């Protein structure tokens, strides 16, 4: 059979039945017992187990497997989506639907579509016109006409401009795809595409306690799968921009970790990153509508330059003096420059000027759903507005802060490249000893109180939100 084609949900023709079959299949899967690998709850628990869902025997190596803050983020989710698509497609076919059903994607970054950032209509209402339950509905933040307050900044595609896929040096940004890790269900630095748009969208849609806000419940929401299909599509877009945009060739990524799932028939199988590189050859095979073809190969020299790190790595030149609890709508913190740094700021005419400057948020821990934070740096002249640096996203915060989790509760991390701002900040040890960082909280929206039929009691009840940035560091590289 030819590879299935995943299409833009906003461009489906009016009479298209893709979402209708998706709805029917979910309706079929929800009543199945959680011990059935083809049930809705089992499929969701592969990503994360809701704390209220009992653990059936035999699920130990299949549940709670999602890879976050890791270079496996993209490859694991690609396999997960394909396995899910296989179950839905088989169900669709058994219900009398088409044999080539494919998961649509939600391209919320499509600037040509004024409605792109609104949730597609089929997912918005709790009930259908005939009064029956709409299986495409999920426990989410309150919204009007599908508007979850998603901004153009939330759906920015800046991640696509980052050439390196990964990074394994603390202090440097973690590339497009995420930092070098082993099997990693959460904790550490986010890759660029995981941070924005992935994490931001999760929190916008999930709000304060909806399914999408927590890894343990996110996949219970049918929109999760369209969101991740878009992230998976962005990986293809990134890779096809040119030969500078290379997947890792490191054996630790390609074949170092095996992931376990069930196929469309509920039979277990394993895969590795190397298996999912060609989407048309993995499982049933699929491709995306509208993804540009790969660009012509450029010189090998260019490729090598972007794949290899060199030198001693970034140098810590400033840090906060204490952990920074983010309380209230706005929190300010001082990054105090350290004496004795061997490098001077980028662009400096004195000493050995660094090429890049990074602001690193380390060991971000907490509980509940504190929302996302806009991060700013004060400019040299007080008359100027602070410069926007980026977003601190908190999807997965609670899991990453659990001391019994795989990172021992070390929390999340986020690194921003602030090289372009250094000149505007006037950052030199001579005329400034402190870098002023401001966090502006974006509170998560309140959630709908009701739950989808058959999934009652599975939404998490988040405790009061608390969040602390363990350390804010400035690195010159």
């Amino acid at each position, binding site marked *: 059979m030819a590879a299935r084609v995943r299409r833009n949900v906003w461009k489906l023709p009016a009479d298209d039945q893709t979402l209708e079959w998706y709805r029917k299949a979910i309706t079929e899967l929800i009543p199945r017992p959680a011990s059935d690998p083809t049930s809705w709850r089992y499929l969701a628990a592969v990503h994360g187990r809701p704390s209220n869902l009992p653990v059936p025997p035999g699920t130990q190596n299949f549940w709670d497997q999602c890879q976050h803050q890791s270079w496996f983020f993209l490859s694991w989710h690609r396999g997960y989506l394909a396995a899910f698509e296989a179950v839905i497609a088989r169900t669709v076919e058994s219900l009398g639907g088409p044999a080539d059903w494919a998961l649509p994607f939600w391209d919320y970054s499509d600037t040509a579509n004024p409605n792109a950032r609104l949730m597609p209509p089929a997912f918005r209402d709790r009930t259908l016109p005939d009064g029956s339950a709409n299986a495409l509905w999920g426990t989410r933040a309150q919204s009007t006409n599908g508007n979850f307050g998603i901004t153009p900044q939330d759906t920015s595609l800046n991640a696509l401009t980052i050439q390196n896929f990964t990074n394994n040096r603390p202090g440097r940004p973690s590339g497009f795809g995420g930092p070098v890790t082993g099997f990693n269900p959460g904790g550490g630095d986010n890759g660029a595409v995981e941070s924005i748009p992935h994490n931001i969208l999760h929190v916008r849609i999930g709000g304060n306690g909806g399914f999408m806000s927590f890894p343990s419940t996110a996949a219970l929401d049918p929109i999760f799968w369209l969101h991740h299909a878009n992230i998976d599509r962005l990986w293809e877009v990134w890779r096809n921009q040119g030969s500078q945009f290379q997947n890792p060739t490191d054996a630790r990524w390609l074949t170092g970790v095996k992931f376990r799932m069930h196929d469309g028939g509920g039979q277990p199988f394993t895969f590795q990153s190397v298996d999912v590189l060609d989407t048309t050859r993995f499982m049933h095979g699929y491709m995306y509508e509208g993804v540009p073809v790969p660009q012509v190969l450029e010189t090998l020299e260019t490729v090598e330059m972007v794949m290899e790190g060199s030198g001693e790595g970034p*140098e810590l030149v400033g840090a906060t*003096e204490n952990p920074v609890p983010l309380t209230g709508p706005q929190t300010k913190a001082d990054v105090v420059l*350290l004496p004795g740094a061997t490098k001077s700021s980028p662009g400096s005419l004195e000493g050995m000027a660094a090429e890049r400057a990074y602001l690193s948020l*380390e*060991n971000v821990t907490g509980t509940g759903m504190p929302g996302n934070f806009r991060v700013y740096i004060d400019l040299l002249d007080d008359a100027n507005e602070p410069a926007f640096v980026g977003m601190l996203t908190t999807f997965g915060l609670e899991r990453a802060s659990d001391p019994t989790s795989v990172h*021992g509760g070390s929390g999340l991390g986020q690194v921003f490249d602030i090289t372009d701002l250094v000149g505007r900040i006037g950052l030199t040890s001579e005329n400034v000893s402190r870098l002023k960082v401001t966090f502006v909280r974006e509170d998560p929206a309140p959630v709908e109180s009701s739950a989808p039929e058959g999934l009652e009691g599975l939404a998490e009840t988040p405790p009061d939100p608390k969040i602390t940035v363990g350390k804010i560091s400035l690195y010159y590289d």
Partner: protein
Amino acid sequence: MLAETIQTGFTEGTARASARGAFAALRSPAILWVVAPAVAGWLVVFYFAAIEPPGNICAVRPSDSLLLDQFQKVLHWTAMIAAMMLLLLLPHVHVIAARTPRSSRHAIIALFVAGYAIAWIAFGTALIGTAAALGGVAAQWWWLAAAAYAAAALWQISPMKKRTHNRCHGFRPLRAHGWRAGSDAVSFGVAHGTRCLGSCALIMVPLTLAAHSIVAMMAVSAILLAERLDSEPNFIGSSVILLLLGALSLL
């Protein structure tokens, strides 16, 4: 970090650069404060094995001064911990080094390692003291060692092992300014050592009871290193190895 530093040296392509890279690697905090003490620990352990007659060195020898004997055992324990446990610190040391000002890296990492060692030495001293108090049952040590191996094997496959093992991966932010940088390094070292005790102490007990067998120490070291480096450790496999070591201790 060592591998990266050495690799950096070789990729520069000249003998001079290679020599410079190798020299830089030898001066790195990881080599000086982790690898070198670990190597020294193994040398001391081998030395003890060479001079000690076969038998249970944890039993009190009537011919020795009790205090001297206990002191020697604590030294032996310290060497064993240096040999077996310090290499497990390399991932943490890598991150600490990267997140510490270059000018204070050696001091901070030395303090972190010292804090870690303090936790283990305190535990070892208590263990040796207990062993001395139970000296009257010295004839039963081999059976106790075998039982301790069985207990350690059970521990490996318990849910608590996975949770305590995960705690060993925890990382705490260290302040970078003034004396607090040093005190944070020590306290994090102690906390990290305590967490590692939670995960590994039961495995170290039979080693002590079984007269610090070199073969057993090397096998357990390999288990611990694999556990630390593998993101999905094979606890069942290590449990089986511990059972085999328990059986061997009876021979």
